[in-house]
């Protein structure tokens, strides 16, 4: 069995895809791309796909990860192209590596988020961020399945800064970009929760809903304050020369039972 790890996106209007919706779409894409999937045993066999840490519905993402199990060997690059063509534009496959290490989920310990706040002046955002970072704890409430829950958002935040938008924007409309580095803890702190914290602490209230995008996900690096590519260890573990995969070998071998 071959395991392949994929990085995918939720872009533009398709960021409103829920995780359940994505799962169905992905499993159909596997069929369309005729990927030789391994199936779970049991009464209703399912293709073996493990999803890690999906972004909430409505937030965009450049860095979602999953792993699939195949019954036959496939070239990750070819698979990437095939699957990407089988998914709607916006749900794009952007990286594929063969799994050579264990524990992809263990390497997803933090995320970098971008939050675009239309109608908010950069100065106001900066002040709010300053107050947030200065606080020991920032308690917010969120409605969960078990009712309202109060929890701290400050502890999980490893970095937060306010930036001006890209230069190509019209200057007459204020807009601020927040760049957030948040550790994956329990309970999970979502970008929304940090925004609630900023509102509670410094009255930062964007007039339109923030456009939130996950830019990266990976192992948190204390020194740089950023995250590392979670697929890098699989790439590094690959043999130096391209592997003599089954496909290449059989192409040169004559037909008949292998030696």
């Amino acid at each position, binding site marked *: 069995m071959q395991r392949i790890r994929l990085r995918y996106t939720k872009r533009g209007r398709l960021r409103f895809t829920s995780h359940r919706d994505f799962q169905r779409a992905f499993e159909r894409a596997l*069929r369309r791309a005729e990927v030789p999937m391994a199936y779970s045993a049991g009464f209703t066999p399912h293709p073996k796909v493990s999803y890690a840490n999906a972004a909430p519905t409505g937030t965009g993402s450049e860095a979602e990860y999953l792993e699939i199990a195949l019954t036959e060997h496939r070239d990750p690059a070819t698979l990437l192209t095939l699957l990407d063509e089988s998914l709607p534009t916006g749900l794009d496959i952007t990286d594929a590596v063969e799994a050579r290490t264990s524990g992809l989920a263990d390497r997803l310990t933090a995320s970098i988020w971008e939050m675009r706040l239309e109608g908010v002046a950069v100065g106001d955002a900066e002040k709010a961020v300053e107050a947030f970072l200065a606080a020991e704890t920032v308690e917010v409430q969120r409605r969960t399945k078990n009712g309202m829950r109060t929890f701290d958002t400050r502890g999980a935040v490893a970095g937060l800064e306010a930036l001006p938008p890209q230069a190509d924007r019209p200057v007459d409309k204020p807009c601020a970009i927040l760049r957030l580095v948040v550790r994956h803890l329990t309970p999970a702190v979502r970008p929304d929760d940090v925004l609630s914290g900023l509102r509670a602490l410094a009255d930062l209230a964007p007039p339109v809903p923030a456009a939130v995008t996950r830019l990266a996900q990976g192992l948190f690096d204390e020194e740089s304050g950023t995250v590392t590519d979670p697929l890098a260890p699989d790439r590094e573990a690959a043999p130096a020369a391209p592997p003599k995969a089954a496909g290449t070998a059989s192409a040169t071998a004559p037909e008949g039972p292998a030696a």
Partner: protein
Amino acid sequence: MTAAESVFPQLEALLPHVQKPIQYVGGELNSTVKPWESCDVRWALMYPDAYEVGLPNQGVMILYEVLNEREGVLAERTYSVWPDMEELMREHHVPQFTVDSHRPVGAFDVFGLSFSTELGYTNMLTALDLAGIPLESKNRGIDDPIVLAGGHAAFNPEPIAEFIDCAVIGDGEQAVLDMTEIIRAWKAEGRPGGREEVLFRLAKTGNVYVPGFYDVEYLPDGRIGRVVPNKSGVPWRVSKHTVMDLDEWPYPKQPLVPLAETVHERMSVEIFRGCTRGCRFCQAGMITRPVRERSITGIGEMVEKGLKATGFEEVGLLSLSSADHTEIGEIAKGLADRYTEDKIGLSLPSTRVDAFNVDLANELTRNGRRSGLTFAPEGGSERMRKVINKMVSEEDLIRTVATAYGNGWRQVKLYFMCGLPTETDEDVLQIGDMAVNVIAKGREVSGQNDIRCTVSIGGFVPKPHTPFQWAPQLSAEQTDARLEKLRDKIRGDKKYGRSIGFRYHDGKPGIVEGLLSRGDRRVGAVIRAVYEDGGRFDGWREHFSYDRWMACAEKTLPSYGVDVDWYTTRERTYEEVLPWDHLDSGLDKDWLWEDWQDALDETEVEDCRWTPCFDCGVCPQMDTHIQIGPTGKKLLPLTVVK
């Protein structure tokens, strides 16, 4: 004309605040967005229900593809928005939009709505209002879209006559293309004569009904005197469309694959259209004649291409009675053989008791799960089944379920109707006896006690263009009382009661459906009042309000000297002009009347596919003929093509 720019930027700000925003963003696999300026005739197609129900609708999907394949023509889709979204759209002035490129519906040339049921009428009014299109046809201007109704409910469009500009009855594939050419020519000429002229050109063909060109005259007692064209050149009757060769129309080729969860997610292929079994309650069977089969090879090709295009894991073989296809055994076996490796399941939504056989059932479940089997005897007593011409005997049913239980099935579901013409309490109580006999037989042949039978009962609503169009509908109170007696009987059965599931709906929604089904233009006032009072999504139990419908009917109908009972529980006579008489489904009204008399005499009529013609009138009137196999061809394995 409403500007055609996308409203997505405004909409996007609302999406985080509504339930299931994915249903409003489009971007489905196999959806099409054509450049606006490259087309001169633009259609907005609507299924007037929630996205999750509307998206899988075959009719809309077929027309969407047929139109978009044409050069210079585009079609986009729109669905009913949920009340949470409606409220935000009104607050932020976002108009009804298409999900494909989020353009305002008001910017299109045609706004076509497909009505599978009358319960979508209030949703049409919501959509028109959100689109900024005047609710009444007479108030629309040159730049407003032509509002077109289609679908089975359009065979009596009179209740919505004031809201629509035109209606098309029958098969839509060729009809929308013919309409497109007329509209295109009119636009190219600089829209001479305005709206009236283009509607007149459509009406002149005899295939498009324009209610505004017909006056309805009433008799002092409230019945219709006559329906007359008020413009010279407009035909007295409007004919339905019939597509003859289904293999020429292999649609949908590229079924839409939604991201959101919807009610049906499978590759559906219509294996034939029409049905001549002659069940007297069944409007679909009456208005879609004659039977036209898709060939086994045509079906195989559609399934293969469709699965490749969608990645669906189930194939649905659709029709009004799928086991009646002349080559159904070969089709099921061929498909099951082809897709053994791919774990593709097969489903046959409508199976008759007498057409079922265990070989077929085994093929259907070979690659998938063996769930329950569903049959529809419709009537509980032998007498009742003669009245409705459902020629299935209790012995047929018992033999069939014995085979099923003997081959490993444990669950059988039976559909019935309550409130059929001439029905008595005793007829309905016999449903209970039938369920008991099914369980007893099941326990006997399987040697096990965990056999289940679910009885599901719907209220009968008399429909236009059927032999029962003259019949009195059973009142909601009587329906409920009858079903209560049956429930008590089943629950009181010590030996079998616990093995029988009992599901039924109360009689109230059926009365509203009855009012809308056989209503005339005066019912339009009720629909409008209900809409204005907040009525939406009448097909949804949680949104439907019987009390609102009745209150609005009491406010509006008395001024015409009629009431809800007059439309529903009143029996009509031979002489009465029915509101839909000027819409020609091909069925000879005298034949329908004879069939109604035969029903009352408990006389059955055979299927004309296997016996001589019984002169229902459709084939000569519409210049069509029965088109069935067998072709003798086989589905070959697809090892090479892959």
